């Protein structure tokens, strides 16, 4: 579990204008890493680059294991049931029959999806259920690195609690190294071991904060301070 699972080195990415500038960060084995930053600063782009879905213009990404990603918008196929959505990756990797059924069952129940949830189409399922299906779709491939983009956004309190329980269970059981992008600090900070605070677009790493040993109040205070600092800095500069 020790060692660096994922390392981003001096990454630069531009679409029509620069989005990421000289971003370097790393994810340690077994760690839950938070990434926070202002709206639209480039967090999703950073996560997509980490997952290898987008390539950086400059710099590099080193991954020490398989990556699973859960998108901000779930991105489930609307014409398939949740069960079929969870099974997608297994099918693409040639896993079929009993093995497929077993894995879909195991990982779905791990995130708290029932058989009746799995028989639904996404449009009939609640936001929380859809988010869990997206999580199970990533987990069935047994990744060593899990990337979560705004996992709590758009969920009600009950669904957020239930998702947090599922994540805690997964970490206890598998010690999966995880990156969580979130601007919901109250949800993120109790879970994270460390956070990187990004600047407004183009995103640079403004601060790295080790949260271990701090209580929640202290964590919130530290991260909010850092966010205020970068916002006031970008306001004047």
């Amino acid at each position, binding site marked *: 579990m020790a060692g660096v699972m994922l390392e981003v080195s001096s990454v630069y990415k531009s679409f029509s204008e620069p989005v990421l500038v000289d971003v370097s960060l790393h994810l340690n084995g077994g760690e839950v890493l938070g990434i926070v930053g202002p709206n639209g600063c480039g967090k999703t782009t950073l996560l997509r680059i980490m997952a290898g*879905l987008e390539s950086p213009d400059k710099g590099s990404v080193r991954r020490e294991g398989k990556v699973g990603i859960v998108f901000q918008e779930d*991105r489930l196929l609307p*014409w398939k049931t949740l069960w079929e959505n969870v099974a997608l990756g297994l099918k*693409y990797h040639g896993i079929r029959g009993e093995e497929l059924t077993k894995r879909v069952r195991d990982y779905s129940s791990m995130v708290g999806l029932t058989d009746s949830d799995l028989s639904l189409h996404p449009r009939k399922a609640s936001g929380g259920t859809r988010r869990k299906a997206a999580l199970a779709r990533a987990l069935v491939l047994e990744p060593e690195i899990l990337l979560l983009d705004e996992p709590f956004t758009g969920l009600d309190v009950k669904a957020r609690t239930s998702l947090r329980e599922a994540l805690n269970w997964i970490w206890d059981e598998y010690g999966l190294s995880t990156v969580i992008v979130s601007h919901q600090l109250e949800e993120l900070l109790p879970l994270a071991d460390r956070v990187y605070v990004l600047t407004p677009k183009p995103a640079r790493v403004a601060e790295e904060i080790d949260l271990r040993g701090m209580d929640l109040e202290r964590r919130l205070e530290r991260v909010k301070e850092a966010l205020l600092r970068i916002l006031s800095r970008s306001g004047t500069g």
Partner: protein
Amino acid sequence: MTRGGKEASRGHEIAFRAGRILASLFVLAIWISASATGMLPGPVEVVAYLLSMEPEEVAPQVLKTLYNSITGFSLSFLASMVLGLLSHRLPLIKGFSEALSEIFNSTSALVWSLVLVATLGVLSPLPPILVVAAVTLPHVLTATVSALSSADPGLLEAVRSVGAKPSDEFFEVILPSSVPLLASASRVGLGTALRISVVAEAFGSSGGVGYMIIRSYNLADASGVLAWSLVLIALVLGLDQLVLKPLERRARRWLE
């Protein structure tokens, strides 16, 4: 919605339906005034003629026209799928398809009919099918190309993130995403196909509603012309309202 809103939308709905009924009455009124000149049989006469026709006389012609249009449309649909799929990858095919659409789009059904009947002969069953295929191709091809590029890039990325190969992307995302647009294109295309098929049938002697219309015309049987025209209208409307429209509506819910 508020109660006022509900009432307003109910009023809206009633007015809308009234407008639809008015349109039918309007067409009927034109027909009646045209028949008042004495040059054209009126509705009563034509309906009486229709009722006097034997089902065994009408059915084979209707089936022939349906067969011509569906076969012709299927040909253009298949060709469009193949070209649309290849256009996705190959710029050569993309240019080819685009120009082919433009050329076909500027060629009239009349020209196709004459050329094909002259080439294949009046007795050949092929011209109506080929004319339908040629005339519907530009619309269907354009629609197919845009349908096949309508997939949500987010969904494509999501399946790629769990290991989808390009063929998985095509069959699992691109094709299913294109269902609603393909259904709309098919609805328009099949309606066009029926109307074009009768034009082509008129130039041959292999049967169909179009053949019956022109035959009645050549026999100076005006009631026959109008009766067979009504058969065609009923066919187009019936197919559209009873089959194609419900199918299109179902297809549209597919992506929700």
